[in-house]
C-alpha cells in the first residue's frame, strides 16, 4: 500500500510520518502535484499547521490542489486531512482575510471564538470528542481524548460532521464526505487514541488499494 504524505512547506510532517511508521506503513513524502500524481497512491494523508490562507497558497503554488482534486475527489482515493489539512477542504476560509478553499465540503473556516471573547486562543491541549451517530471512521472513539492546537474551526452542514468537541461551545472536530476524511485534532500527537484512528484509516484504505 502506497501512502502519500503531502508536504507543502508548513507543519511538522515528520511527526505524522513517525506516527504512520508506528502504525506499520512507510509513507512516501510528496512535495508537489507531479510527485503526487506519479506516485499512484492508495491513500493520502495531509497534515498542516499554521494559517489556512498560507496553506492554500502553498498548495496551489505546488500544483497540489489540481493533483489532489483528480486523485481524491474524482478517483475517490481515501484522504485524511489533519488540522489545517482538514480546514482547506472547506469552500471559504477566514483567517487574516478571506480565502477560497478547495471546496470539497460546503463549509467555512472561522475563528473558534470572536475577538474579545473570554476564551483563550489557541485552543491547546487534550479535549474529548463526541461522535455523531456511529462516528464513521472514528467508531469506538466516542469520549476519547485527542490533542488539539488551533484557533480556527470548520463550520459545515450536519451531514458532514462525524464528531464534535466543546470549547465554550460545540465545534466540528471531524468531518467525513465519502472517502474524504478530516480531523481538527492531531492524531499523530494523540497517544493511543490517535494510533487507533490512523490504523482505522489505513485499514479502510487497504481493501480499496488491493
Amino acid at each position, binding site marked *: 500500500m502506497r501512502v502519500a504524505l503531502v508536504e507543502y512547506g*508548513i*507543519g*511538522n510532517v*515528520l*511527526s505524522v510520518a*513517525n*506516527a504512520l*511508521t*508506528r502504525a506499520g506503513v512507510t509513507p512516501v513524502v510528496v512535495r508537489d502535484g507531479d510527485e503526487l500524481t506519479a506516485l499512484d497512491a492508495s491513500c493520502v494523508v495531509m497534515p498542516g*499547521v*499554521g*494559517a489556512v490562507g*498560507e496553506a492554500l497558497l502553498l498548495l496551489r503554488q505546488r500544483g497540489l490542489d489540481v493533483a489532489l482534486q483528480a486523485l481524491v475527489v474524482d478517483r475517490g482515493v481515501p484522504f485524511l486531512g489533519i488540522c489545517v489539512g482538514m480546514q482547506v477542504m472547506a469552500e471559504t476560509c477566514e483567517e487574516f482575510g478571506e480565502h477560497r478553499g478547495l471546496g470539497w465540503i460546503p463549509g467555512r473556516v472561522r475563528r473558534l471564538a470572536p475577538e474579545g471573547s473570554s476564551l*483563550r*486562543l*489557541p*485552543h*491547546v*491541549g*487534550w*479535549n*474529548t470528542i463526541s461522535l455523531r451517530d456511529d462516528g464513521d471512521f472514528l467508531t469506538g472513539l466516542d469520549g476519547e*481524548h485527542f*490533542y*488539539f*492546537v*488551533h*484557533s480556527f474551526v470548520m463550520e459545515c452542514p450536519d451531514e458532514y460532521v462525524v464528531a464534535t468537541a*466543546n*470549547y465554550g461551545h460545540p465545534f466540528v472536530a471531524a468531518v467525513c464526505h465519502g472517502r474524504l476524511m478530516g480531523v481538527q485534532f*492531531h492524531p*499523530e*500527537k*494523540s*497517544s*493511543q487514541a*490517535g*494510533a487507533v484512528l490512523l490504523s482505522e484509516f489505513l485499514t479502510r484504505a487497504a481493501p480499496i488499494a488491493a
Partner: protein
Amino acid sequence: MLKRRLVPVLYLLDGWMVRSQEFQEHQYIGDPVLHVERMIDWDVDELIVLDIGRGEMTFEHHRQDYRHKPVLTLFDFIQRIAVECRIPLTFGGRIRTIEDIRTRIQNGADKVSVNTILADSPQTVTQAARMFGSQAIVASVDFRRVEGTSRVYLRHGREDSGVVPAKWARRAQDLGAGEILLNAIDRDGIAQGYDLEEIRKVVDAVTIPVIACGGAGHQKHFQQCLNDTDANAVAAGNIFHFTENAYPRAKKFLTQARSDIRPLTENRPA
C-alpha cells in the same frame, strides 16, 4: 471539555539530562534518551525539553553500550525521541534565528520555546509565528522576585530586564507567541510550591494559554496551582526525576481531585 495539562520539563546540558536548581546548579542525571522514553511510557500530556547549555553545542557522552545507536548531536537527539513521541514535544534553548526554529521543527519538534530572542530579536518571533503558526511558538518567560517585585530575567536568569512578567508576557503575545511558559527562577528546584500570585497576574495579562513552572515539590502543589489560578498547564522538572512513578501518581491524585485532568491511559499496549 478541554483538560489542563501536567507537563514534565527536562533540562539538557551538553547532551546530558540534568536536575536544575535556581538556574545555577546542575546535577547530571543521565542519558536524555532514556529519560524521554520514560516520559513517553508514562504517556505524559506533553513534553518540554530545554537545552540550557550556553557555549558551543556539544553532546559529550559517547558510551557505546546503549541498546540504541549513540546520539551525538542535538538533531540526532530530537530525531531519535520524535520517532517514539506520540505526544506533543516542545524544544527550547539556543534559539536565535528562523533557521534554528526550522531545524528543530524539521527534526521532529512540534513547538519551540523561545526566550532570549524576545528581547534581542523580536521581529524573528513575529516572522516565526507567521511561518510556522503561533501555536508552534512558546514564549519562555523567566522571572525572579527582587525586593518584593517580580522582574523578568534574561540570559539564563542572569540579566535583569527591568520589566514585570505580566507586561513581558503580553508583549510576547503581541509579537505572535501562542503560549507562555512562565518559570519562577527562585522556586526552581526548591519544591515549595508555585508562585500563585505572579501566575494569576500573567494569566490575566494575556489571552493565550499559560504553562506555569517552578516550585512543584509535591503533587498537592499541582492541585493548588490548578485550584487557585487559571493556568492552562502546570509544569515541573525535578519532581518527575526523583520520586518513584511521580507522574502517574500525580495524575491519579489530580484525576480524583478535579474533573479537568486527562486520566492515565489504562492498559496501553506496549
